């Protein structure tokens, strides 16, 4: 089946990481572990991954990174005080799709 999304790991360096034109042309979803979900088979997304020197990940590789980050965040959340828990929702599991 044709893929809808592709994944890469790239650290947001700030200004210019996602520029205005890219924001218009590409649908970005930032995930734990600096994993970014962008459209598959998309010229603009492919150019963006190259621009940010992103490391392309398969679905299972991206899922493993996200799972590890979410598990760590859930463990940290469980140790919070009740007041802090009120202010911050417990990180949810994230199921990636391709």
């Amino acid at each position: 089946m044709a893929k809808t999304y592709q994944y890469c790991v790239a650290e947001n360096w700030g200004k210019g990481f996602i520029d205005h034109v890219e924001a218009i042309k590409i649908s970005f979803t930032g995930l734990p572990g600096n994993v970014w979900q962008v459209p598959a088979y998309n010229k603009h997304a492919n150019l963006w991954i190259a621009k940010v020197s992103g490391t392309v990940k398969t679905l299972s590789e991206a899922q493993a990174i996200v799972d590890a980050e979410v598990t760590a965040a859930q463990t940290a959340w469980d140790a919070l005080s009740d007041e802090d828990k009120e202010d911050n929702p417990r990180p949810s599991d994230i199921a990636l799709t391709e």
Partner: protein
Amino acid sequence: MATYKESVGTAVQNIAGDTGAITGQLWYDSSDSEFKYKYQAYGSAWITANSLNTARNNIAGATSGTQTASLAFGGFVPPHTGATESYNGTNWTEVNDMNTARNNAGGAGTQTSALTFGGGSPDYDSTELWNGTNWTEVNDLNTARSGLGGTGADNTAALAFGGESSGTAAHADTELWNGTNWTEVNNLNTGRDGIASGVGVSTAALAFGGNSDPSPLTELAVTETWNGSNWTDVADLNVARKGLAGAGTNTAALAMGGRTPSVVGTTETWNGSIWSTTATMNLVQSLNSGAGTNTAAITFGGYDGSSPGNVATTQEFNAGINLGAWYTGGNMNTGRNSLTGFGTQTASLVAAGETGSPDVYTQKTESYNGTTWAEVNDLTGSARRGAASAGADNTSGLVFGGNAPGYTGITELWNGYVWTEVNDLNSARAGLSGCGTATAALAFAGKAPALGPPNVRAETESWNGSNWTEVGDLNTGRENLSGVGITTSALAFGGRDPVTGKTELWNGSNWTEVNDLNTARFAVMGAGANNTSALCFGGTDPSRTDAVEGWNGTNWTSENTLPTVTQTGAGTGTKTAALCMGGGNPSTDFSTTTFEWDGTGFITKTITTTTD
């Protein structure tokens, strides 16, 4: 004699940067030594409009109605209803009921010339004709059924297709109405009920989605096009579903909502060959009805998946509107959540916040110039989180309240260089919101357990440059809301407890409740100039969200989402040029990230040139 412009054309203007360049213009940017071109990007969005008077599912409608002239009839309240309502683009008005109360019926026609047929329960074959004032019984369908699809230009020419009758498999039967009688014509290729209505006319229609019946009951993506004689299979919907609504023609249609079996807000647009997903509805709806075109549609009523879940919701879809976008700005030096900020997209200040867990608070202040953040002098009072602020830009502002820990009313004034402590708020609190300037500000809402129940507050205070004075309360007390504007024209939205989408408008004297956010949430961020122009982004609903909504003075409209879900950050700027700073996101609870928003949809492209 010909002018230079007539002979040679318009000269390419020389502009340093892009200030003053207009859409469609080609110019030479002397700052970058590049030729540039500006164009307008367009997109699609849903707006939540005024609700029906009667909430109901399995509602029918005048399928050739428009976004500004629609008719809704029948449905299940419970019980079955014959209630009919007319929409003028702003409000629904109750008009005369149908003779036979029914739900899951077919519909066709316009606001002034409509037809309804079939429905349940039991399964009806009866047909009624609407002349703009009254319903009149006319000749019956040949096959009694409910859950059928229907369409037609007016009450003289309609098509009925599919549906179900108790104890039988889903129908493929199609019938044609000539203004007097129904005639059986060629069947659908795939019999089904829960089929979409409302696309096309009796000589050129589209049937899509639905439910196979009997078991296994399966949601269908099947699409068929009618040419006046036969149904032909064409490309499937991307998302199989039943109980959805439709609008448009058989060459330009829109599929809205439905059940997969979960109730969804999925929207797909049909170009005559394929379906493509487009902007998701603000609120999920199934068993709804629709009208309009695939660029200006309306959907109303239905079921949202909750219990009992019958809704009066009306939503309008528009294509070809200015498309805003978020892109990354400079990273802050200190990652934090529960910070506060004021200013513009190119001149903002942030202060305070939580930088670590548990309860590590900061006095740090940073200033943004549109590109980079610079650390400047710290707050003089205690490190704190959950404060609010007001200020025109990064040279002048006010920070007030917060949790240090312990709720405080401390107020500090920023002169562009240092903070000076000034008079406290009357009510110490945290999780409040503020707006205005260093000399004329508002502080409202927040949490203040010391004041006794309720913990969340509605108090509003006004700052005149020297002192805080209590003024009119919000109608709904809350904390972790957002607010924008000035002391004579402000807007408050979102917050908790409980989690709310309530929006209130301040006119300089009083708060008035207006239309809610489409997504109720707290820990939300905002930007805006006054109570007619605002942007709401991120927050918790109760999961962190990337949802963005724009306020036009009357309604909230969905906008392009943030690149990452974000809560408890700070927002500054305006509806068309905003900043989202820090907060918690999936990678960290103490983010340094800045996102910049351009709501104009203008894109500047550099025209690449090569030289030998």
